[in-house]
């Protein structure tokens, strides 16, 4: 089966600019996650979707980050305006109901550098 697709792979922007990341989960996976991984740290959950509804966005900085999952398939994560501390790898993961017992499948990530 095809994996979790993310784009772009790399992005460099100046602070105060905006940026958007895209994720296409594995077909049929109802749950989609966005994680932020700062260099040298473990991934931190930003938002969890179940189909097109938000399950948990308690750690999403809502003043600058937004995410949507229209039609319960693809998802986009946006940052506006970006700050230097947003430099990180943004990982998308998906899982099916059965997948909870097998681990989640992660995409390759988008590496964001804010200068």
């Amino acid at each position: 089966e095809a994996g979790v697709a993310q784009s772009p792979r790399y992005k460099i922007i100046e602070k105060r600019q905006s940026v958007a990341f895209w994720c296409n989960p594995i077909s049929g996976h109802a749950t989609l996650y966005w994680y932020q991984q700062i260099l040298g740290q473990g991934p931190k959950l930003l938002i969890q979707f179940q189909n097109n509804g938000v399950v948990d966005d308690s750690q999403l900085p809502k003043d600058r980050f937004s995410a949507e999952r229209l039609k319960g398939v693809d998802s986009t994560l946006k940052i506006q305006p970006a700050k230097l501390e947003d430099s990180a790898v943004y990982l998308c993961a998906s899982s099916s109901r059965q997948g909870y017992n097998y681990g989640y499948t992660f995409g390759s990530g988008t590496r964001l550098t804010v200068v």
Partner: protein
Amino acid sequence: ELKVEQNPLFLSMQEGKNYTIYCNYSTTSDRLYWYRQDPGKSLESLFVLLSNGAVKQEGRLMASLDTKARLSTLHITAAVHDLSATYFCAVDKGNNDMRFGAGTRLTVKP
């Protein structure tokens, strides 16, 4: 607030040696994951531990879970260079929401 602590954070070992990585967590959970991450790559699922006393093995890696002690271990037997990577444990805090530890960066030297 669920806290997940791994130790050691850095581990340098020689080929052929054995070692254990520890993962402690602060609140009750009955589902724990181990992932591997190579530099510049994404995370690869290694093990999912679903109940107290669960033990899983794959090659030179063996993972176990003690839910009463809130502790999981990842044991490495006779390490080889190919095992060099960062290993993360992640705990399900409920609602299928994983929280990750900081990771253990393992380097296996000849």
